[in-house]
């Protein structure tokens, strides 16, 4: 029996398993499919610090710094490339908001700045209808598969028990937790719920109701080209992001602003066609590129689009979910914070306090910069 059972083998479950094992804790991770089978394997790999709320900026900053040394820590190439995030403002009003965000971001140490139209062009990006942008050189992209597999491999070496192709079916609490899967029975002191958008179903097993809903997001990758695009290009008002990976592919996504929750993740042709059109306005090179693959995944959305980190319903039923479009970039931080919580350390208490389950009782307002 392990002290902690983690449900879900996405990048967050894997990061938590690694960080617990590193602290000498006994831990079992249970994943229904393979590691990265959920949103992690569908994601765009973006890492950014430019958020609109201070609390999110703080944890994103912490996480972004951890990414800088992650390849060394995990002893694997994570294909990290920090070319910055360039977020387009399409109206003067939006640009004013960006200026305010940048002031707040700078005040806590995020080195973001405002770009003029000319400066946007200097990045090889067509401004089209943009009137300015905000940019932070600390931001970038990495490979979600390599990061997750790195966490998994090191966790295993440190003694973590990683179980794939095994589904959690039932959980009960009687002083300790009992977890029933399609193959085994486990006991645990702590259960970590890192099941992505299905975290709601896991919590339901214990009678805890999480305010999480799945939203479909589509994404594509083009053929690999010589490097030409440094920053991750993003737009809140057009709801898109696109970057070039170290392997040369352009990976981009766009989602209609008004969508309903759904678990139907079927890719559509209309997405591919509309997304390509949209990107052509700012990156005319896209016109001559072939889309090689497209797929869809789900964001696990909470009412304020911010994660739930910490206990819910039971003192030792720990949530690491509700990441919307940012669970990959936050994962190095999440692993540390949750592991420290389980081992009774105070280190990250203040940073995670804004992300408690309790906040929904008080009422919340929505983080604006959701996409990518």
């Amino acid at each position, binding site marked *: 029996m392990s002290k902690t059972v983690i449900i879900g083998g996405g990048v967050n479950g894997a990061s938590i398993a690694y960080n617990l094992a590193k602290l000498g804790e006994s831990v079992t991770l249970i994943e229904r499919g393979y590691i990265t089978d959920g949103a992690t394997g569908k994601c765009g790999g973006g890492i950014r610090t430019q958020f609109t709320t201070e609390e999110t900026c703080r944890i994103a900053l912490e996480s972004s710094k951890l990414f800088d040394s992650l390849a060394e820590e995990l002893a694997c190439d994570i294909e990290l490339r920090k070319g910055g995030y360039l977020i387009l403002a399409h109206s003067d009003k939006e640009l004013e908001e960006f200026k305010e965000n940048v002031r707040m971001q700078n005040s806590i140490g995020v080195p973001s700045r405002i770009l003029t139209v000319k400066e946007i062009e200097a990045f090889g990006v067509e401004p089209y209808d943009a009137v300015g942008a905000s940019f932070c050189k600390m931001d970038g992209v990495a490979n979600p598969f390599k990061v997750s597999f790195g966490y998994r491999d090191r966790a295993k070496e440190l003694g973590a028990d990683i179980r794939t192709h095994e589904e959690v079916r039932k959980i009960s609490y009687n002083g300790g937790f009992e977890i029933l899967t399609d193959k085994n029975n486990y006991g645990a002191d702590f259960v970590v719920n890192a099941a992505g958008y299905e975290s709601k179903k896991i919590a339901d097993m214990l009678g805890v109701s999480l305010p999480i809903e799945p939203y479909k997001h589509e994404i594509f990758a083009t053929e690999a080209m010589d490097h030409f695009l440094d920053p991750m290009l993003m737009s809140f008002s057009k709801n898109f992001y696109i970057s070039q990976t170290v392997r040369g592919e352009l990976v981009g996504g766009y989602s209609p602003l008004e969508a309903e929750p759904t678990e139907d993740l079927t890719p559509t042709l209309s997405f591919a066609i509309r997304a390509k059109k949209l990107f052509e306005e700012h990156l005319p*090179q896209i*016109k001559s590129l072939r889309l090689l693959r497209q797929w869809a995944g789900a964001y696990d959305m909470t009412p304020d689009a911010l994660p739930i980190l910490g206990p819910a319903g039971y003192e030792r039923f720990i949530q690491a979910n509700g990441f919307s479009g940012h669970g990959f970039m936050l994962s190095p931080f999440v692993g540390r914070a949750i592991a420290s919580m389980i081992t009774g350390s105070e280190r990250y208490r203040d940073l995670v306090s804004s992300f408690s389950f309790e906040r929904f009782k008080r009422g919340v307002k929505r983080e604006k910069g959701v996409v990518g």
Partner: protein
Amino acid sequence: MKDDRRIYEHPVLKFERGKRLSFYLDGKPMEGYENETIAAALHANGIKTLGFSPKLKRPRGFFCGIGKCSSCLMRVDGYPNERTCILPLKEGMKVEVQEGRGRAEIRGRERKGKVERRSTDFLIVGSGPAGLSAAAEATNMGFKTLLVDENPSVGGQLIKQTHRFFGSEREYAGTRGIDIPARLLGECAEKLLEIEKQASVFGFYPEGIAIEKRDRIELVEAKKVIVTTGAQENYLLFENNDLPGVYGAGGVQTLMNVYGVLPGKKALMIGSGNVGLIVAYQLLQAGVEVEALVEIMDHIGGYQVHAAKLLRQGVPILLNHTIIRALGDECVEGAVIKDIKSGEEQTLALDLICVAVGLSPSIQLLKQAGCRSAYIPELGGEVVLHDENYKTDAGIFVSGDGSAIEEASSAMIEGRIAAISAALELGEIEGAVEKRRELREELRSLRSCRRGEKILKGEEKLLEVYNER
């Protein structure tokens, strides 16, 4: 001196080349013919290196000849990553050897902005023997049929098979492979058949079935879909296996039998299945010397008659032998083969290594559509599951090499069974059930030989997994 690799005399084939065209390779003028692919024209001019790999800068050349392997990517008229093995040559084309991944440029491919829609009763993907036979049945039962193939010509693998076929008469035994497509087309009710060449079916979407053409995308609404996408060649692991001059047997056939271009002067064939045996013989017919055929097993895999033809020509068939290394810097200059029993190695000087180590069903499209699959070695590897009417659990029908690696004769029968079964779901058809019963009987008798046993065992396994759920 000009390095002309074209075949002018052939015992079976007459090459009617189209108009003479001029084009440029890295600015240097070259000559080719209309109806030839870029890769074939370059090969005819003695050009084997088509690009260099992005990381290690290894030379890259031709391999599959049917647009599946991405080894032949070049820059054409400014566009990188063009599959030159299936792209037809045009007057004045500017072809460039591609180093690495290629530059993205600010210029548009000419595509119509709008996606066009069309509808049909039957959509058949792939125009090999299975697809053509399905089209013949569907149109004769009165259904409007759209037949789509990504290659420039109709016929799938048949267009390069110069030998006379085995099997039953109804499946055109005794006829040369190259002559079968026209016979099957002749069987179709012409008015109901529409054919789209150089068009790839790339996805089953909620909006419809998507087809990519050179200049646009089309969405098809079809009552019934039959996928007969055939197979792709297996690869073999050995040192320097990526050198230009190491070609798939299918690719070699395409070069010499379709385009009349010599794939090399001296060859080593790897694999003694029917494909290896037949292609080795075809190499001889085209005027290529075949130094040896190596086979790692202790017996010949294909039919004895095919092997006998080779032995009569003095080609050594070396059993318990394999290739361990290709030699050469820019392209193949030799091969090291090894006797796996004695460990003895031998170096051969040659410029062509032909890999004929089996085929795997092309099931990507069906997987995208959501079909379940299973690994069944008897059927050629990973295959999609289907019932006895060749219906997959996505409701799409499958047949031919795309469902299991077998042969053209069985592909034809399966294509017919699939078409009849699909049609019966749309309503009663006089005589159809009876015809399907007869076809099943024919398939059984075709499989009553030694090779058939393997397929029957595989089919049994497949139905078992299919019914598991």
